[in-house]
């Protein structure tokens, strides 16, 4: 176990707590830099989706995890970013202009959503953001002069400083990686600033924050704005990655998927967004391979346990028919959400911390360190 010798108050707010982080993150960066040249096209493209999902996850963490404002409308923010980019690209605006523009415009919409959200708490906010998402989806489908309605919009290849960056190229990969890293660094910086501390104070207790002189309304709106801006930037990349966008891509289900990202990853730390994004994006290829291989494996297993060949093949067929049933993915998603909330409420990052502590304190690990405290239901009706 490492004991950090503190010699300076600034150490408490450093982004890297000790030199060990420099080494581990440099190695991670090196691995990520080599990845596109080592991995195949498919995995590289999945990694790009991981970066984009992680960017959205971080924007959600700022809002949900650190300010305590629920949102099930982030697909709408993503859509606004994506459509802004598509529209601007069609009108000949260069990428260096419309990329920030997508962020700014989405951020402005986020602020506009933030103002009504000031009066809402908890569940009302969730429902209001769902409604916002539904309205945006309908607008995208109906405002045909700009969005081409349900036909969707095609995006041309991204051009950066006159250089084409196709969506499968290492260049695009590095662009998304750079955006993710910059967003993470900016967010870390934000969270150690007075603004970030105000966000956390509002999450923990609005009344207490107010009595400490924090302008709750202003900070909530700011949180919405920042979160929406980052989502808008991610939306621009998302549109380029897919190269085709249409309204039915940005439904409530996508918003729920983003929330799953942070719940699975762990809602209290930025690591959570990245881990959750890896989980959500990589589960698809994983399930596909499982679907192909698992029935055969089950059949073999039954055979090993003494069943004759016809029975084993029958079991294998049964398993295959279950594995190829439509909608299995939804069921597994549901099980994952419920399972994580029931058994791993701190998410993957929480599990990682537990494992780390186990090895750091090896013979002395106490499971009770992370024991969940149960409280009585705190009423939201009286506030």
């Amino acid at each position, binding site marked *: 176990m490492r004991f950090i010798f503190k010699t300076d108050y600034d150490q408490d707010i450093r982004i890297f707590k000790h030199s060990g982080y420099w080494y581990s993150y440099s190695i991670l960066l090196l691995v990520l830099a080599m990845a596109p040249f080592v991995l195949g096209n498919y995995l590289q493209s999945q990694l790009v989706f991981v970066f984009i999902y992680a960017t959205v996850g971080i924007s959600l963490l700022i809002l*949900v995890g650190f300010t305590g404002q*629920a949102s099930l409308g982030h697909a709408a923010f993503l859509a606004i970013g994506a459509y802004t980019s598509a529209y601007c690209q069609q009108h000949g605006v260069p990428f260096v202009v419309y990329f920030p523009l997508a962020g700014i415009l989405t951020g402005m919409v986020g602020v506009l959503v933030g103002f*009504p959200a000031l*009066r*809402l708490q*908890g*569940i*009302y906010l*969730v*429902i*209001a953001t*769902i*409604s*916002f998402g*539904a*309205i945006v989806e*309908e607008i995208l*489908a*109906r405002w045909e002069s700009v969005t081409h309605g349900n036909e969707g919009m095609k995006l041309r290849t991204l051009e950066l400083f006159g250089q084409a960056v196709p969506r499968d190229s290492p260049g695009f990969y590095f662009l998304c990686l750079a955006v993710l890293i910059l967003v993470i660094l900016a967010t870390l910086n934000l969270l150690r600033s007075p603004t970030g501390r105000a966000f956390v104070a509002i999450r923990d207790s609005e*009344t207490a924050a107010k*009595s400490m002189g924090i302008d709750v309304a202003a900070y909530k709106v700011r949180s919405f704005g920042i979160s929406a801006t980052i989502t808008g930037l991610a939306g621009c990349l998302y549109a380029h990655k897919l190269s085709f966008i249409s309204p039915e891509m940005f439904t*409530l289900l996508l918003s*729920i998927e983003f*929330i*799953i990202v942070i*719940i699975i990853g762990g*809602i209290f730390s930025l690591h959570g967004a990245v881990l959750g994004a890896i989980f959500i994006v990589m589960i698809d290829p994983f399930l596909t391979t499982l679907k192909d291989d698992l029935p055969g494996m089950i059949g073999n297993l039954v055979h090993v346990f003494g069943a004759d060949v016809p029975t084993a093949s029958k079991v294998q067929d049964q398993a295959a028919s279950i594995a190829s*049933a*439509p*909608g*299995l*993915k*939804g*069921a597994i*998603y*549901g*099980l*994952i*959400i*419920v399972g994580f*909330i*029931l058994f791993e*409420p701190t998410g993957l990052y929480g599990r990682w911390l537990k494992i780390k502590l186990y090895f750091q304190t090896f013979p002395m690990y106490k499971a009770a360190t992370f024991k*969940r405290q*149960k*409280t*009585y*239901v705190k*009423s*939201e*009706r*009286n*506030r």
Partner: protein
Amino acid sequence: MLDFIQQLVSGVALGCIYGLIALGFVLIYKTTEVVNFAQGELLMLGGFFAFTFIALLGLNYWIGFALAVVCMAAFGAASERFVLRPVLGSPQFSIVMATVGLGFFLRSVAGMIWGTDDLKIDTPFSTGVLRIGDLVLAHDKLSVIVATAILCIALYLFFTKTQLGTAMRATSENMLAAYYMGIPVKTVVSLTWAISAAVAACAGVLLAPITFIHSNVGLVLALKAFPAAVLGGFGSIPGAVVGGIIIGVIENMAGFYLAQGWKDVAPHIVLLTMLLLKPEGLFGHIGRKKV
């Protein structure tokens, strides 16, 4: 004018379905402060159960109806016991997400069991019409309105006149105080889920002749039932039904008189306006806490 009344009645019928789903939200919200995002899926399951009993097993409509309601009540209590009770007391947002996950799961599993086609149940109300002058009212829509009225009266009597109902109201007022008074709070919460699932099942069976049953019907309807519940004030039982009827009528009128596209957006616009102007809803009230 005739068109107007026609639209009004079908709006009210649709609104009653929204109201019944919203009623389920409200019942659960009142006792446990959990918003059950799987309420629509409970409705869908109720419909599927009824389909199994009536169309597949060939039982009498009323017996099948009753069996579906009983099954769903048991299912509601079980889902409370195994999914919701372990997370009670954690942050509200994670509880909400647990119900979202439950909804995902139920929707997919129902799709896998009953297929993705639209299913139809033959009911005594499927075909008949009631004529008043030039006005033609379909029996299926009238049956929804009548059943909602009956259910509301029954629930009202249950909550005000019976001991169990009083215990439920006490639990919703203050869970801890109810514990101290010797009310078996856990059982009461399970029962609330059972009742709300039963209400959802009723709505599902009544809905069967109007829109067919398919695995996504719950999601679509629940998204409209949220505005209904908020409009009535989350936590008010008459409010849920009134809110549902208002939303149903507005949606139907918007679909009939306004351009295409307004139909789906209108309930959400009403909801956002309501949240801006009067977040506590028509019938609700938000208490103030002294710090």
